[in-house]
């Protein structure tokens, strides 16, 4: 483990997840309060447990070595099979973003700042390894800044997301990563164990798809807070324990759906930059305005959990390649050059679930999503699908402006539906 530099870590900031006066002053409330707030809004009893876990903060206490990952581009099966506990570190904690501003000031995406700001909460101390995929610029560059705080593995990825051009590179890079992991943790997992991890992921996928379907039909029962918090739990819980939490929610939603009818509220597709607990500002504005989320395309939920691992060649390299195709090949992240895929996915979801429009969420200063925004606006205009773009960050000061936009959008949708 490397020696840590003082500049990254600041001991007087040793704040546990949410009891900071500064947070309260900034209007950002701590995790328990946030979780309790959304637990109150939930219609499902089974979600209580989920919110309790979310309130504990994203770093689980475990005897396994914690391997931090960013994005969805690192197959967590490879981490789990080596005995590690994968932890997706992407966070949208406003307090962390402010801390991160001290580490990397300047015009940088708030999500990146928040990840750096985790250093102030001593998260990197608890990690055994941090795997950073060379996805967007922000994520690739912070590997250097964070290297004094933690052991970093930079997973190199080609710019093009085209299977024909890049699949061999993905396979090679992931095989190298796997070799690194095996050496680091001194294990020799068998193919059977790898397949077991893949099957575990697929079991989770099956349940998630059912959740996704029932949410699109009854977003009034399984509201967006519940859905995103449940997805958020998969950031630090392996599939088995996630399933034990998600299945009761699913069953309760089915039961509730049988006994009631959907009030004809507007349902939209949520696309764009991820929304991660506790930054549910936009979700609250949407739900309060009566604009329910019928489907989403975000990497914090759909992109993470919707697709299975399809193993055709069950040699070791074949399984690694299958993981690459699922996590990297199928990724919708705009950091890759994959023209048109995002638009197709959006239009497909709108048509498949009969949604009324698209709400495109972006974080300020995120270039890739910004450029995709223009492309999607044009694509949806061609298909006569109403489109609303929201550009915001983790602060609370623009809630009024968001409300105006969302309410105006709702007026557009209501008029269209007459």
């Amino acid at each position, binding site marked *: 483990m490397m020696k840590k530099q003082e500049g990254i870590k600041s001991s007087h900031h040793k704040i546990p997840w949410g009891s900071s006066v500064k947070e309260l002053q900034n209007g950002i409330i701590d995790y328990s309060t946030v979780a309790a707030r959304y637990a109150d809004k939930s219609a499902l009893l089974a979600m209580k447990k989920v919110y309790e876990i979310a309130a504990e903060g994203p770093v689980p206490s475990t005897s396994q070595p914690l391997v931090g990952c960013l994005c969805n581009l690192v197959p967590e099966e490879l981490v789990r099979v080596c005995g590690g506990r994968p932890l997706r570190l992407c966070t949208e904690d406003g307090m962390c973003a402010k801390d991160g501003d001290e580490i990397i000031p300047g015009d940088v995406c708030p999500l990146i700042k928040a990840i750096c700001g985790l250093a102030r909460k001593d998260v990197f101390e608890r990690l055994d390894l941090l795997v950073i995929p060379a996805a967007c610029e922000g994520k690739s560059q912070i590997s250097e800044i964070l290297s004094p705080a933690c052991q970093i593995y930079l997973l190199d990825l080609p710019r093009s997301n085209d299977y024909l051009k890049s699949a061999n590179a993905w396979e090679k890079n992931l095989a190298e990563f796997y070799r690194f992991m095996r050496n680091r943790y001194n294990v020799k997992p068998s193919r059977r164990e790898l397949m077991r991890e893949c099957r575990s992921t697929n079991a989770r996928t099956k349940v998630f798809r059912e959740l996704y379907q029932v949410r699109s039909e009854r977003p009034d029962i399984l509201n967006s807070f519940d859905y995103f918090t449940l997805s958020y739990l998969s950031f630090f819980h392996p599939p088995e324990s996630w399933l034990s939490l998600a299945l009761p929610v699913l069953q309760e939603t089915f039961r509730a759906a049988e006994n009631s009818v959907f009030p004809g509220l507007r349902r939209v597709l949520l696309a764009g930059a991820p929304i991660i607990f506790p930054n549910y500002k936009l979700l609250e504005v949407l739900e309060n305005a009566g604009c329910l989320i019928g489907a989403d395309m975000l990497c914090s939920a759909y992109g993470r959990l919707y697709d299975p691992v399809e193993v055709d060649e069950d040699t070791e390299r074949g399984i690694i390649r299958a993981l690459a195709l*699922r996590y990297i090949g199928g990724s919708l992240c705009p950091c890759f050059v994959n023209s048109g895929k995002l638009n197709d996915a959006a239009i497909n979801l709108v048509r498949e679930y009969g949604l009324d429009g698209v709400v495109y969420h972006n974080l300020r200063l995120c270039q890739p999503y910004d450029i995709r925004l223009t492309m999607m606006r044009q694509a949806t205009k061609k298909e006569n699908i109403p489109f609303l773009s929201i550009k915001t960050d983790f602060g609370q000061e623009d809630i009024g402006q968001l409300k105006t936009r969302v309410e105006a959008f709702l007026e557009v949708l209501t008029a269209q539906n007459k």
Partner: protein
Amino acid sequence: MRTKRISITRRIVQVISIILLVYGGYLFKTKQGTDAQTKFFPALSAPQGATSTASFKKGSILWPSGDTPVLENYPPGLVCRFNPNGGMFKACIVHFFSENLTWRTHIKYLLPHITLFVLLCFLLGRMWCGWVCPIGSVGDFLTALRRRMNLSLKRFPNGFHRGLRISSYGLLGISCAISAFIGIPSFARYQCYFFLPYCQVCPARLICPMFGFIKPNWKDFSVLVSSVFTILAWVVLGLFVAAFFFGRRVWCHLCPVGLINSWFNWGCGVELRKNSIKCIKCGSCADACPMGLTRMYKTDRNEIYTESGCIMCMRCVEVCPRKGCLSVHFFKKKITQSHF
């Protein structure tokens, strides 16, 4: 992984096909070794004056071992042809063309077979290769063995497959040319050496008799030509088997039977269609294709994506993670689709 409905069905069909091709002739035989016409296919009897195989040299590699020229007789072991007592019905189309180019058979005896062949191809395209061909089934078995042994796949670049296909045209062309040449009366004396030139080197000749527990005729070093054919046959068999430890279905790019079947892939009854808007471009379909095809991945239109190389194994449809993205149709009626 999840239920592989299509693959399981395909395996069952492959096994049944081997059994039928090897032993099925027994269903139609009248009497073994006699010249009696088959009672089921009178129209398919051999024409008068056809060159009898009795004039062939004994011990030609075309005959499985033993004195009796078994080639013209019943199975087992002879998936290449189904010919109870001199009839014309053949299983392998290349054997059919080769033989009749040499014997200059009258077209009226060829029409039933050609019609049946064309009809089957029109309905099913290249499904023979993926679902029926016995050496294809052997290949799939070898692939499973390779995976068991954890030998990674070597993916060949596209140019390699194109090169094989061009060679396949060459192989078929040369074989037909030789067959036609030795049919010319002044060159008939070469028939005993050059008869069925492709069949002499085809890997099926050495593999399929084993299904019938018959020893294949491994070698004939009596004359130069036979020796050359013997060595060529070994080389082809060696490459055939070895290729399965590096790739999947490599031989199928070279096989002349597959080549002829492939001409019918465009416009046949079995259609593989893509609904492009559902595609997430993960590449699983192209990755799983044993023929290394990529059109199902590349295309952005809602179209039929079967190429000439497609053996209709439908692995692409099976591995696609998005419901309804890839589907199998039979004359526009949907049979099955990708699902999870």
